[in-house]
Every structure is written in C-alpha cells, then in structure tokens.
C-alpha cells in the first residue's frame, strides 16, 4: 500500500491527513499495537515539518510518502524549510532538559521507529518500522 500526499503547512490539514492515513493503514498492520507508534511517528514528523521546517508558512508544502510492505512500513516526510542539524538536538531525558516544553518529537521518533535518518540537510526524515516475526 502506498499513500502519498503534498500537504499545506496547516496543522488542521495535517491532523486530517493522519486520521485518513491511519484509517487505511490500521486494518493492514500485522498487529494493532503498531498503530499507536506509527501514528505518533507520523504525527511528530509532520508537525515538526510544518512548525519548525516550514515555519507555518502557508506558501510552503510538506510531502509525505508512506509505503506499507510485507514486514515493514516506511515513512518519508520532506519540508521546504532551511533544514537543520539533527545531531544538535539535545536529548530531552537529560536532567537539564527534562522539564523543557519542546524538543521531544525527534527523540520519540528515534525511540519508537527502528530506523530514522535525516537527509537533505534535515529537510527530509526517513523512518522505518519493521514488523519482526509478523510478516
């Protein structure tokens, strides 16, 4: 199953897309328990792309591609912003950052997905979740 969309930098449209995408994906997942993690990763990547990547600029779009294959699901999200260095994002579970009000999205993606890499100077994130032993 392939789901591709170009979204405006509008959080309402992003949430509507996530709901529609999850409605298509959920029945196809090998275990319902993957649904929450995939939804969370998709949510965090898209919200980051709109807020931090495109800076909520309505002239800029976010591209999202989701590919569900036997044994794995891959999500790619690309924004049109300036990019960033993901290595510079602090770990939010350190004592000094624990009470900060932002900076958890990328950390969560890295924790819940099996692969997460940034390309094109941080404008693109590619994430993969493997359904080990369930394909």
């Amino acid at each position, binding site marked *: 199953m392939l789901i591709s969309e170009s979204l405006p930098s509008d*959080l*309402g449209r992003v*949430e509507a897309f996530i709901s529609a995408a999850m409605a298509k994906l959920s029945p196809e997942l090998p275990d319902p*328990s993957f649904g*929450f*993690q995939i*939804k*969370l990763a998709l*949510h*965090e990547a898209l*919200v980051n792309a709109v807020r931090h990547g495109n800076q909520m600029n309505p002239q800029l779009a976010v591209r999202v591609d989701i590919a569900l294959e036997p044994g794995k699901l891959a999500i790619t999200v690309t924004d049109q912003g300036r990019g960033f260095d993901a290595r510079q994002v602090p770990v*939010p*579970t350190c004592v000094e950052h*624990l*009470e*900060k*009000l*932002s900076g*958890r*999205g990328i*950390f*969560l993606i890295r*924790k*819940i997905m099996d692969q997460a890499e940034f390309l094109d100077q941080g404008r693109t994130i590619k994430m993969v979740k493997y359904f080990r032993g369930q394909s």
Partner: protein
Amino acid sequence: MKIQAETQGAVKIVNLAGELNVDDSIQLREAFLKLLKEGATKVMVDFEKVSFVGSAGLATLIEMMQLLKKAGGKLVCCQINNDIRGLFEITKIHKLIPIYENRAMALREF
C-alpha cells in the same frame, strides 16, 4: 478533544476524552490556566478516554505541573492506557508527573 472539569473536595479533576494533538493541547492549556486563575492547586487529569497524546500534549502537562508546583500545588494523572504510559516512560515524564492506575489511588496523592 472533550475537556470536562469536576471538583472532589479540594481536588480539581480534569476528564479528557479523545486525542491530545497540537490544537487540543492549546485547548487543554487554556482550561488549565482557567483552573489556576480560579485558585486550583491540586489537579488530577483522568486519561481514561484518551487514545492518543503527541509531544505537544506532553509539553502542556509539563507546563501545568510547573505552574501548579509554583503555586504550591500538584498535578497527577490517572487511568492512562499502556501506549500513552509508554510515552510517559520513554520521555521520563512519569518522573515529573505521578501516574496512578485509578482515580482513588490518584486522589490519595493529595
């Protein structure tokens, strides 16, 4: 998201239903600030009917925990499902905001 507040003794109980996304977090923040303005210091959030929380929702809870702490009060959460509990644990927010299995246990925290 539906947000409904009730009072039990000195404790304000905030019942949530639905998903805690970005816009819902703004709505929840406003509800919390209203409670603070009304003098609430002991607040319990009931997650029984919450199916999803994003990082914006976590940030709102942390901010409210900080504001309540400043006011000499406390924020606790209860009835969180396993997926969302996992989220609290991954981010270590359960170390900042106590989580209880049910409302009775959470109320004893106060």
